[in-house]
């Protein structure tokens, strides 16, 4: 019998390979050369310092939203609200960036913490409603996404600016960008945030696996009755789990606000960072190291795909379908799990 751990590693890898194969057939079907296509994709991820910098830049918020979803998952909760938590965190970071004048070593931490706190607050509300009223967190977090989207737009337009569509750019004292990084990656928007994301992954791993707090939250996620029997405060733990999850997503917002863009503009729709976070968490089997790897894959595909139309002539639409196929196979990993089980049974007869 295959061990569980092997299984958790094998399934995502097979999913990705199957997705790539399906994509290859699709390209052949439409008369494109899949080797050229995937060559262009790889080139678009690793090809030069610029694209690699952009890939890492894209990976940064995905790690954080992936952690947010994975953390909630591990405690028995489904956080669909990372999307909204990102916006709120983004807004908070930019707001603090613009409102305060301070040296970088105070200004940056302050803005980053503000983003985490704002995201945490956006997680607190569904957590509170779930713990005290039994309202399902999926419904509340989806609603909270819309509230976040429109209220951030309103704040940008009527509070932070005078009916403009974008805030001012944050001062250097709070920017996560650094000249030497920009120069090294020949003008990419890569910033220090990647270190924050990796550190957050370490935090998630430690909290979930090594602390009494994580033990309680996991226990409550699995069995509330037994947790109460063991003297844990079930309500507190549900709320806490949503708060921590929200904080991770809020940090992803800070990456956009303080790193990639340096401002926040009104949005016509969702950024998809939060929704991609669900796929990242799923592919990463809800573990911190898994999330990092999965975020690299997703970020890579996103940035690499930009090169496919230019270098291999594969049209944009087809590229989107190929990416979607890979995600589809990942999401369908339960099916792949089932097939593997089936085969390992047959093999034994």
């Amino acid at each position, binding site marked *: 019998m295959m061990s569980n751990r092997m299984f958790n590693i094998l399934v995502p890898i097979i999913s990705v390979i199957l997705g790539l194969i399906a994509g290859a057939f699709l390209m052949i079907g439409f008369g494109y050369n899949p080797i050229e296509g995937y060559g262009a994709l790889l080139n678009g991820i690793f090809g030069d310092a610029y694209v690699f910098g952009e890939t890492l830049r894209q990976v940064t918020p995905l790690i954080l939203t992936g952690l947010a979803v994975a953390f909630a998952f591990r405690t028995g909760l489904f956080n669909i609200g990372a999307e909204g938590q990102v916006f709120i965190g983004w807004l908070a970071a930019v707001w603090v960036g613009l409102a305060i004048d301070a040296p970088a070593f105070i200004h940056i931490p302050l803005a980053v913490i503000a983003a985490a706190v704002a995201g945490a607050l956006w997680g607190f509300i569904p957590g509170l409603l779930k713990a005290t009223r039994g309202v399902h967190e999926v419904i509340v977090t989806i609603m909270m996404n819309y509230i976040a989207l429109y209220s951030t737009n309103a704040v940008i337009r009527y509070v932070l600016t005078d009916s403009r569509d974008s805030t001012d750019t944050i001062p250097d004292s709070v920017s996560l960008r650094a000249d030497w990084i920009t120069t090294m990656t020949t003008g990419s928007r890569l910033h220090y945030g990647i270190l924050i994301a990796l550190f957050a992954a370490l935090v998630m791993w430690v909290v979930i696996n090594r602390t009494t707090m994580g033990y309680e939250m996991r226990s409550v996620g699995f*069995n509330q*009755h*037994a947790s109460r*029997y063991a*003297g844990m405060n079930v309500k507190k733990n549900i709320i806490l789990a949503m708060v921590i999850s929200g904080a991770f997503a809020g940090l992803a917002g800070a990456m956009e606000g303080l790193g990639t863009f340096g401002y926040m503009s009104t949005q016509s729709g969702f950024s998809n960072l939060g929704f991609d976070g669900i796929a990242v968490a799923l592919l990463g089997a809800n573990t911190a190291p898994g999330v990092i790897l999965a975020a690299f894959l997703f970020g890579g595909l996103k940035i690499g795909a930009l090169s496919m139309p230019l270098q291999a002539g594969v049209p944009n639409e087809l590229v989107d379908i190929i990416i979607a196929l890979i995600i589809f196979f990942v999401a369908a990993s339960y099916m792949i799990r089932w097939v593997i089980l089936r085969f390992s049974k047959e093999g034994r007869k």
Partner: protein
Amino acid sequence: MDYVIEMLNIRKEFPGVVANDDITIQLKKGEIHALLGENGAGKSTLMNVLFGLYQPEQGEIRVKGEKANINGPNDANRLGIGMVHQHFMLVDTFSVTQNIILGSEPTSKGHINLRKAEKEIQELSDRYGLAVDPRAKIRDISVGMQQRVEILKTLYRGADVLILDEPTAVLTPQEIDELGDILKSLIAEGKSIILITHKLKEIMNMCDRCTVIRRGKGIGTVNVPDTTVDELASLMVGREVSFTTEKKPAEPKETVLEVKNLVVQDSRKVDMVKGLDLDIRAGEIVGIAGVDGNGQSELIEAITGLTKAQSGSIKLTGKDITNLSPRKVTESGIGHIPQDRHKFGLVLDFSVGENIALQTYYQNPNSKYGMLNFKNIYKKAGELVEQYDVRTSGLHATAGSMSGGNQQKAIIAREVDRSPNLLIAAQPTRGLDVGAIEFIHQKLIEERDKGKAVLLVSFELDEILDVSDRIVVMFDGKIVASRKPEETDENELGLLMAGSSSEKVGDTQ
């Protein structure tokens, strides 16, 4: 000889354990065949193999003489094999009918025909005397009824061979008698039955033959009329087992638990404990006898802080603990072996080690400054598993992968090891084999001899009579009588439990 089912030389491994090693069992048509073995011997595993849930590494299964390939429950159903699992698999919020048809819904033009199903189920229920209401919701019916629903489910799918995995462990004595009648009527209709049970008396009363397995190996099959309880026990355990527990007379000291005028409601806001008084002293075991549903669960939940008491007071060694949180209650010196091990006792997805730390994970040496110390947690778990003979495939395996009896032993190890001033044991030996029961009873008596107070709740009068120093009978939310075990017997207790006024049988309280 025509056998309906033959399992020949079956072998099944899990990572780290051989659960079945060369086991053979042959079921004759129209017999009730017992499957006996210690906790973790591999009984459930063997039956899961027959039901197609596991694939054996070796061996052959024959159904009515023909070699069969059983790849899943659907194959098993097709071959006329039905199974009632040790832990039920019902959807709480569905009705009886919905649960029974789940997975094989009768449809007409794409719609589920619930009426038709209800009628069929009613007919089946009447035919075998099951008295099940097809429209009742699962969460509103008793455990005994839920079990009958599971039986109906197999019959509805056309089972000729029924596998019952420890059906009596969750039943009250009356319900067990009723189950016996149901099994007889099933046999009369031409069914054959494999029955797993740890209760040797039941085997003697109900079964025709008995196959014994020990630590995964087949020991043999005996004809029940040709054997005795003692022989069965020693076949199973591999040594002599004593059935009555040796103990010195109790030396009760100061009062440990003092319950006064306690009123507790259940989740429907109905009074279940109605002004109850109870004292337990250090160095004595008090057994509560009573029919299930007379307020025992609510009493325990109130003492342990899981439910709020409406009124009255609970004192532990003189300190008021009424309506404290479960954590505070535990820390003030109470241990609790809960009646429902899957609901309260364990986090099934946690490892064995993490479960053993469930009450102490936040304390030194299991953790420090909020950081868990897994080295200490697993070291302690290893010691307890050894000491209480809990059989697992490893401390890192999930609690859910342990056999039912070993799950129970793990809980007992956790609670008894803390050596609390008051140990509350609700049905502590449910689902345990005779050897393990002997061991657990000794442990309870050891705690008593250390000067701790023990509160035992059991639906088995044997156990109550055997282990208690003082027996109180609970009826309709109150203690209605108090007896010394040597001055009473099953008959008198039975009468008192049924609510016959205690003056008639002479009250001593």
